[in-house]
């Protein structure tokens, strides 16, 4: 897989193999906290650290809806860009073009997905810095997914510098 700046306004990802393609298509669903309390708690944390229940309650009612709209907006941008994925018939590799103006939304969406996945699977600092993956189970795949999204985030952050 190769990420490169095509011109002033476009970043291209080429040579996307089937596994990476699957992970890209999982960004939006992975970012949704659903009914998972840990994931919801991480994406919408208490602003008082739990010390002011009344303030937290007001925050939930009045601030969280704005945050939800903001988060959904980033996911919508990513979903639309992913709709433009092209697949080379013979080589089984896909390619994607992302407008530079959408990179902030990508970075945000990737972060939502990483945080939700990490909360859902209870990843600790130790898990995150482990060199070798744990056993090849669902948790290991989720950890790989978090690192893959982190790699994309780093690349996009560099493009914005």
């Amino acid at each position, binding site marked *: 897989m190769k990420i490169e700046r095509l011109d002033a306004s476009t970043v291209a990802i080429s040579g996307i193999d089937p596994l990476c393609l699957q992970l890209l298509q999982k960004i939006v669903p992975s970012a949704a906290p659903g009914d998972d309390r840990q994931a919801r708690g991480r994406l919408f944390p*208490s602003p008082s*650290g739990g010390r002011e229940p009344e303030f937290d309650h007001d925050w939930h009612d009045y601030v969280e809806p704005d945050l939800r709209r903001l988060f959904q907006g980033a996911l919508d941008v990513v979903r639309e860009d992913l709709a433009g994925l092209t697949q080379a018939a013979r080589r089984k590799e896909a390619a994607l073009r992302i407008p530079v103006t959408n990179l902030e939304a990508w970075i945000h969406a990737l972060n939502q997905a990483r945080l939700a996945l990490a909360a859902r699977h209870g990843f600790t600092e130790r898990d995150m810095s482990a060199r070798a993956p744990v056993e090849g189970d669902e948790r290991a795949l989720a950890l790989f997914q978090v690192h893959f999204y982190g790699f994309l985030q780093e690349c996009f952050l560099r493009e914005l510098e």
Partner: protein
Amino acid sequence: MPVAPTVDPAVEQDTQTDEALETPWNVIVHNDPVNLMSYVARIFMKVFGFPREKAERHMMEVHEKGRSILWSGQRERAEAYVQQLHGHLLLATIEKSEL
């Protein structure tokens, strides 16, 4: 991880006189194992207008000490900063200063 600078980040003080009589509120950012260090520093630059070096000092303080005070001042403004930080998915809270 690179070694952190030894200088403690300066805490931003709001100097408006009508706020001087009130106990200030701190905007705290807490460590989490997932957010990228480069991302956190970038958000500090964006939200607080910090130069890169200062943003990175705060980021390292979060990483090494578990938390950093990013701003102190009037409660209403502190809440607005926390909202912005939550909008960028950082773990931020508001806390009354112990001054």
